[in-house]
């Protein structure tokens, strides 16, 4: 290897002196040559050359070291020689170093070049990717493109093929979907143009007609004052002929404003009063204007029904939005309370019009009126009654004829407790009201009570869905019986009222034939709890024969040292059920009632179960019967004693009869002779 380097150095050194003589060269050329030469040299350069050089140099240094130890001339010579060799190696090293630098420089340059190249390629690549994406997007756009024609409703293909002109439906149109569509669109356009033309024509016609109408109306309006004038002049004639046309027209107008249930009730009641019952009068009460407004609203509501749905959707959204904000929450709560109040009001709102019917009776001055209110939100009818009777005079009797007592229990178990409508409970819960508060709420509004019969009267049923015909039928079926029932109850109650009024003042109607020796000391009304406390009433309370809806009285009858206390229950459905007496007899320090004495039991049975021909003065008769029975008991009882307290004042056939030793309580036909016998 050393040899190789030598050779190269030789050639390098030899070639440079040989060239100048051939071509005289300029400085630049020389420089260029040198550079190109060095480049060629450089291409042959290997890193090992450095190593070889160093090894050679090291060897020379070692040799010199060894030679120096010899200290001979020979050695000196050789050292000199070696020094030359060493210098040569150093020169060589220098050369190599230069070459190395050169090579490094060259490589750096190429690296730079390559880097630039790479950068530009990269740029190109990115451009391409971007372009590709863009194209993809464009493609997608194209794919998702919607033509406006898709929204257009076209005539169906069959119809198109049938009606379209021949030009539009060539053979190819039918085959190709796209052309087909184009053809159909074309056809559609034609048709629509035609239609719009027609529309315009019609609108023009309409305007013409409207103009004419306005003109006619003007004419009519000018006639109206004349007509009114005519009407005014006819009024005296109407009065003379007793034909109140105008009033009827007014009523007709009102009737149209009634809600359906009230309308039904009104018409049927009217019909009934006209044909059958002249003492029944029917009228409409309430605010006509308000009713008109409601009627208008109702019509509008119908029109707006569809748009309302959307509105409600929006509301929900708003609510959701509100929830985030705290201060809004408070506001919202307040508004909720307001809302609730409003909802409650709406729920209990009644229709401004109500139907009222008056019932009057033969021989009786007092009239009773019933007002039917309709609560559209709750969907039922409430009833108020009004009695124009002067009940101030009597405390005890007034209970009998309160409007509630007359209206309630007209039919079995109809006390109007709770709503007849099963939905009501949930409606009330919705506005956070207790279902038990219904009564209170209705009372507050002075609406009366929702009796079941009132629903029937207005053709409302909650058990089954009725169409209008069925409602009418229900209403028709209810009216006659209802009026009869009310009348029957009224009559009985008024009679009862008069009786109690008398009794309260201690007056009892004396039958001429039978003298009553005992005295009615007291007749007062008592409450249900007061009634229940007594021992003799226990059986009635336990058996559920009396209930808190009934009216209760206490009557005290005395004769000498004996006292008879009667606890009287007037059932809520009087006169269907008769008054029930519970008696308590005290005499000679003994107290007898139906549970402790068979005799008292017998008397009680007689009073509670004796047959009467009519309901007139029933209570009076019962009490009279009680008093005669009491007399007879005392008289027969004391007839057994040595020193009778009571003298026999009534004639009886036999004192006692049968195993149970019945007393002769039953008056015989001529009413002066008493006998025992069967209870009936």
């Amino acid at each position, binding site marked *: 290897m050393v040899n190789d380097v030598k050779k190269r150095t030789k050639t390098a050194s030899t070639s440079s002196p040989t060239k100048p003589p051939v071509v005289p060269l300029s400085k630049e050329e020389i420089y260029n040559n040198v550079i190109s030469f060095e480049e060629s040299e450089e291409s042959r350069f290997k890193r090992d050359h450095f190593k070889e050089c160093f090894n050679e140099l090291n060897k020379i240094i070692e040799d010199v070291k060894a030679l120096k130890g010899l200290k001979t001339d020979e050695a000196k010579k050789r050292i000199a020689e070696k020094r030359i060799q060493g210098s040569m190696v150093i020169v060589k090293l220098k050369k190599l170093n230069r070459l190395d630098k050169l090579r490094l420089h060259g490589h750096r340059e190429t690296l730079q070049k390559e880097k630039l190249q790479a950068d530009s390629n990269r740029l190109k690549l990115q451009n391409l990717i971007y372009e590709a994406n863009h194209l993809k997007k464009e493609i997608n756009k194209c794919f998702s493109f919607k033509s406006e024609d898709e929204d257009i409703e076209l005539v169906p293909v069959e119809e198109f093929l049938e009606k379209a002109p021949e030009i539009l439906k060539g053979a190819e149109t039918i085959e190709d979907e796209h052309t087909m569509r184009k053809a159909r669109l074309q056809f559609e356009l034609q048709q629509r143009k035609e239609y719009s033309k027609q529309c315009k024509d019609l609108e023009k016609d309409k305007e013409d007609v409207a103009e004419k109408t306005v003109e006619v109306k003007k004419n009519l309006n000018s006639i109206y004052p004349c007509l009114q004038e005519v009407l005014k002049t006819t009024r005296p004639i109407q009065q003379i002929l007793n034909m109140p046309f105008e009033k009827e027209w007014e009523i007709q107008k009102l009737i149209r404003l009634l809600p359906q249930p009230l309308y039904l009730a009104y018409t049927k009641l009217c019909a009934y009063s006209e044909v059958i019952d002249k003492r029944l009068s029917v009228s409409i009460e309430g605010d006509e204007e308000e009713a008109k407004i409601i009627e208008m609203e109702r019509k509008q509501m119908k029109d707006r029904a569809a748009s309302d749905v959307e509105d409600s959707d929006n509301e929900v959204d708003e609510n959701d939005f509100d929830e985030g904000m705290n201060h809004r929450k408070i506001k919202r709560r307040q508004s909720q309370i307001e809302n609730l109040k409003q909802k409650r009001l709406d729920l209990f709102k009644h229709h401004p019009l109500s139907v009222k019917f008056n019932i009057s009776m033969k021989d009786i001055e007092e009239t009773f009126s019933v007002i039917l209110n309709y609560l559209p939100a709750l969907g039922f009818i409430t009833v108020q009654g009004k009695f124009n009777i002067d009940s101030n005079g009597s405390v005890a009797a007034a209970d009998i004829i309160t409007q509630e007592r007359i209206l309630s229990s007209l039919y079995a178990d109809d006390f109007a407790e709770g709503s007849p409508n099963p939905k009501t409970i949930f409606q009330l819960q919705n506005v956070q009201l207790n279902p038990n508060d219904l009564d209170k709420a209705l009372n507050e509004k002075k609406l009366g009570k929702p009796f079941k019969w009132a629903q029937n009267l207005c053709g409302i049923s909650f058990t089954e869905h009725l169409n209008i015909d069925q409602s009418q039928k229900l209403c028709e079926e209810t009216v006659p019986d209802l009026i009869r029932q009310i009348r029957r109850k009224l009559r009985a109650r008024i009679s009862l009222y008069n009786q109690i009024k008398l009794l309260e003042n201690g007056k009892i109607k004396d039958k001429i034939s039978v003298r009553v020796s005992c005295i009615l000391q007291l007749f007062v009304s008592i409450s249900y709890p007061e009634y229940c406390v007594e021992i003799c009433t226990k*059986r009635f309370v336990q*058996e559920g*024969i009396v209930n808190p809806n009934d009216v209760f009285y206490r009557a005290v009858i005395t004769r000498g040292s004996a006292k008879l206390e009667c606890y009287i229950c007037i059932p809520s459905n009087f006169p269907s*059920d*008769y008054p*029930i007496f519970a008696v308590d007899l005290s005499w000679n320090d003994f107290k007898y009632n*139906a*549970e*402790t*004495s*068979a005799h008292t*039991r*017998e008397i*009680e*049975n007689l009073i*509670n*179960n004796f047959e009467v021909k009519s309901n007139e003065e029933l209570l009076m008769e019962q009490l009279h019967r009680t008093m005669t029975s009491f007399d007879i008991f005392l008289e027969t009882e004391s*007839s*057994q*004693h*040595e020193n009778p307290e009571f003298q026999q004042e009534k004639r009886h*056939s*036999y004192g*006692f*009869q*049968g*195993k*149970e*030793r019945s007393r002769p309580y039953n008056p015989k036909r001529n009413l002066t002779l008493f*006998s025992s016998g*069967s*209870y009936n």
Partner: protein
Amino acid sequence: MKENIQKLLYTVVTSQAISSSGRFLYACSTFGDIASYNIEKITSCIENVNNEDISDPISVFKYPDSPISMSVHREFLIIGSKNGLITGYKTSSGIIQHKSWNIQLQLSPEKIDISEVSDLWVDSEKELLYAACGSDIFQCSLDNGTVLNKFEGHEDFIQSIQGCEQNFVTASSDGTVKLWDSRTKKATFSIKPSENKEISRNQFGNWMGSASISKSWLSCGGGPKLAVFHLNQITKQPFQVFDYPSTIHVTDFVDLDNLLVAGGSNKMIQYSLNGNMISDIETSGPAVYSVVWYKNQQYKFLSAGGASNNIDVSINLTYKDATLNFYKKT
């Protein structure tokens, strides 16, 4: 008042009878119904503490008039009612089937007001029926339905009649108790307890509500106190007097010599003849008008009816075991 409620509250059971087989009880009410009950079933249910509902009647028969007194002979239920009419109804397994015969008693016109057949006694050995109607006693043949004899002597209507062998005893509203011999057709003994200061009770009156005899004893009571007389050496002095607190409608000798008494209170008491109280049953109603009892090898049965819809039943004769309903609760 509704009829069913009236019945529940005011029913009076006036008379009862036990079928000759001892298996069925008949009871009649003032509403004209006759209810029958199965005694065997009732006693077995009480003994076995069975929860089966036995309180309602097995059948209810509607009598056309008001039944006042009842008795039985063979398969016939004999019913005494108003106007001296006695009817015999054929029964089968406790169910009244049809009217079989009737006897119309001939009443004198002046006694027409008190014409109801108030009590009956059947002498089954001789097949004779003794009916107390008004103030007279009629002896009828059960063989052919003819009236054989008429026993007169009381001044007011007779409350009870009861007999033993050839004797029978009657208690009347006139305040007397008479002992009759069916052979002589005359009262062999008559007593008016209200005249005896030891027995009389002024506050209740003089009337005699009930009298009964056994082989050697006679008991009677009503307004006056319950008193027992010895039959063998009969005097007007009572052998024993008992302090029953109220009026007396029923006396009877139960189970040999126990004296049962009931009446115008809710107490039904049994005394031994020496005056000791044996049992005191509280009845459902305020008065008892009828007590019947029966005894055979299998069971004993006693029932009391009166001013109540309930009939009280005892199967050991000393305390109340069950109550029966005359009318069902609805």
